[in-house]
């Protein structure tokens, strides 16, 4: 029986691995990742792992003040595993687990996913529920905070015609955190209270201990002939901290040389409003509500304009020995972040260069 299972699995296995390098003026991240998927009768098992080797300069006490930066290195290890049961071709149900750890952060999550075809396979509805637990602490000792998360994702893809699909995405997420730092606060980061240009004292970040998020998106994909497709997406985001955001993406894909070369280009443009309690500077008054209430030095909670331009080229070789296909790819991405009301670091630019290999048996 196991021989039969393995033999059938070899008919549709896939494996892939890649390495990406992220570089901005302060941080370098080398990120290898791998994944594999095995098709067994009525069951698909998939797993993956990713590592981040991070090095760079980060502030220890004050907010993103480069002059006070401290050199650091860190390694993140993450992995996930999923199993999907599809006894019929029209529906499936599965479970997934994941975990991530580094020297000052750990998380774990698990959930279920179900999928069904609707309206004579003109639409596919996918829903998933994921719960997780995260803990962040300061490796050198100090504050520590845990949070519990629950997330519901819904996705529905509708086939409009033989060239066009429309997909709607929806996400609802709740985060419940302790009262030491609150949700998402960095245990290394403190907020300076200033009098003019002078820092009078610093205290730890303190975020609210609950956060509710919601996001919805629509994506339209259309083929133009057999070898070209255009994708357009818009996403609306809002949360209970007052952050709102709009994201637009447009992507084009083109196959050349008898489907051996796949070129893919994407542009991503996002605007995000700041959290209601975010301020560029906090005053020194003891009655200042920022001192007794919520305070943050997280530039990512401020306003943001973001542009990402990405290009990828993938070359496929077919029928290579025992392989159905072998593909190698190279991608380059430029990222520009502008935080218009974050005086200390109003801009950040980054480049991502990576490559990978994938095979199907």
């Amino acid at each position, binding site marked *: 029986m196991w021989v039969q299972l393995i033999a059938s699995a070899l008919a549709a296995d896939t494996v*892939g691995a*890649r390495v*990406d390098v992220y570089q901005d003026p302060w941080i370098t991240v080398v990120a290898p990742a791998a*994944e594999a998927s095995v098709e067994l009768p009525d069951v698909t098992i998939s797993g*993956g792992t990713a590592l981040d080797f991070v090095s760079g300069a980060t502030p220890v006490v004050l907010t993103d003040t480069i002059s006070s930066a401290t050199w650091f290195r860190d390694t*993140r290890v*993450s992995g*996930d595993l999923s199993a999907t049961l599809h006894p019929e071709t029209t529906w499936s149900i599965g479970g*997934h687990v*994941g975990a*991530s750890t*580094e020297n000052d*952060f750990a*998380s774990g999550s698990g959930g279920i996913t179900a999928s069904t075809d609707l*309206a*004579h*396979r*003109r*639409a596919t509805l996918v829903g998933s529920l994921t719960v997780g637990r995260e803990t*962040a602490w300061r490796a050198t000792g100090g504050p520590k905070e845990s949070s519990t998360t629950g*997330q519901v994702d819904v996705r529905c893809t*509708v*086939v*409009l*015609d033989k*060239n066009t*699909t429309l997909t709607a*995405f929806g*996400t609802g997420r709740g985060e419940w955190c302790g009262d030491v730092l609150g949700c998402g606060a960095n245990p290394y980061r403190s907020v300076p209270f200033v009098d003019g240009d002078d820092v009078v004292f610093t205290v730890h970040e303190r975020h609210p201990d609950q956060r509710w*998020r919601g*996001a*919805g998106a629509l994506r339209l*994909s259309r*083929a133009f002939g*057999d070898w070209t497709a255009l994708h357009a*997406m818009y*996403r609306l*985001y809002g949360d209970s901290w007052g*952050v709102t*955001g709009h994201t637009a993406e447009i992507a084009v*894909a*083109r196959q050349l040389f008898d*489907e051996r070369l796949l070129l*893919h280009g994407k542009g991503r443009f996002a605007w*995000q409003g700041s*959290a209601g309690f975010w301020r560029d500077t906090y005053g020194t008054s003891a009655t200042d509500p920022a001192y007794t209430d919520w305070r943050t030095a997280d530039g*990512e909670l401020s306003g*943001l304009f*973001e542009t*990402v331009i*990405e290009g*990828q080229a*993938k070359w496929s070789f077919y029928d290579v020995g025992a392989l159905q296909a072998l593909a190698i*790819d190279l*991608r380059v991405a430029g990222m520009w*972040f502008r935080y218009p009301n974050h005086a200390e670091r109003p801009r950040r630019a*980054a480049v*991502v260069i*990576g490559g*990978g290999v994938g095979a199907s048996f």
Partner: protein
Amino acid sequence: MRKALLLAILVGCGPVHPWERGRLLSPVMADPCDPLAAETTAHILATREAMHGASAVGGASCGCN
């Protein structure tokens, strides 16, 4: 009439038979075209922005510290 219109929006404007779906299965119609690379990009962006969710990229844990 309203129900018919709603149904048409939900299920598309007309039947698309299985043998007419070749283009929909083409690699150019996959977005993201490379899920592994897309997960890396999503992880990077999760540490640069406060927005989250309604993404085409899956994943069990982002570890976005």
